[in-house]
């Protein structure tokens, strides 16, 4: 009886150890998994100098995400995470498939995207753990501002400090049509290419498309109209101020 009790006690002890090891493995796994899950969430940043919003959903070491570089520009991301290294690809609806390489640094994801032979920086900063965002909230609701309708003569192009900037292209005037078309002088449009405009808040967007499915939106900066003078300020990519006078 005593021997049996002793054997039973040893068995229980062994089982306790077994449970202990399982618990330890579980804790270690949870720590590891949670460590990676911290990268999951929604991000904001820049790509090709423009503003982007991004969602990254992580399952194990697999990342599935989407990137918006305009209200209507949605591109998909697939990647893997190893430690803080991030490697994968982006399927950009205009540039095609690009290779993503980079790493997480604290709450930021610093990447390079390779499209053909071009290495383009892609920088993201985590906003929250939420796996949802409202594109309209980030980029706003597009509409046409009737105050912009008509022709505008270009009178100045400077950097943010007021120093003259020389552009390789010289548009003498721009036109915001009531039907949403956007045209400019100085650079003839290539066949089949069309520009449209819209605003979101006080930000001016241009939408470029062609007759075989190319479609791309970019922010031209924030605008202000005062006494028939239009000022267009772009602080992220161009860092310029354009001034136009309403053509009467």
């Amino acid at each position: 009886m005593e021997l049996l009790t002793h054997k039973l006690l040893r068995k229980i002890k062994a089982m306790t150890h077994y449970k202990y090891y399982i618990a330890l493995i579980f804790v270690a796994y949870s720590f590891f998994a949670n460590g990676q899950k911290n990268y999951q969430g929604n991000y904001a940043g820049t790509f090709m100098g423009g503003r982007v919003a991004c969602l990254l959903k992580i399952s194990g070491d697999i990342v599935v995400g989407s990137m918006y570089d305009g209200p209507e520009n949605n591109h998909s991301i697939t990647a893997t995470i190893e430690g803080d290294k991030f490697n994968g690809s982006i399927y950009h609806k205009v540039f095609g498939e690009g290779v993503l390489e980079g790493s997480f640094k604290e709450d930021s994801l610093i990447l390079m995207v390779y499209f053909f032979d071009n290495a383009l920086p892609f920088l993201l900063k985590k906003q929250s753990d939420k796996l949802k965002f409202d594109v309209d909230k980030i980029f706003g609701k597009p509409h046409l501002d009737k105050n912009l309708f008509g022709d505008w003569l270009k009178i100045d192009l400077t950097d943010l400090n007021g120093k003259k900037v020389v552009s390789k292209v010289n548009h003498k005037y721009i036109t915001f049509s009531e039907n949403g078309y956007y045209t400019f002088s100085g650079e003839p449009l290539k066949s089949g290419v069309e520009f449209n405009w819209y605003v979101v808040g006080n930000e001016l967007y241009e939408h470029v498309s062609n007759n075989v499915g190319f479609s791309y939106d970019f922010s031209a900066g924030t605008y202000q109209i005062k006494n028939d003078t239009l000022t267009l300020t772009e602080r992220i990519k161009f860092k310029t101020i354009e001034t136009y006078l309403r053509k009467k």
Partner: protein
Amino acid sequence: MKNLEINQMSNLQGGGRGGCFAAMTAYGTSIGLLHNAKTKEETEAALGAVASAFAATVAACEDQS
């Protein structure tokens, strides 16, 4: 439709098939121009070039997919 075509173009990237490959090279160059544009006007011009290069690439690679 275009997504599929871009995928097919990507598949052809290593193939070096004459006109298709040349068009894709030009397309890549136009993306570089867009990336390096310093003003809104240069960006507009570069985007026009990218859109045209995209169309040329689709046309050149379409019959090879």
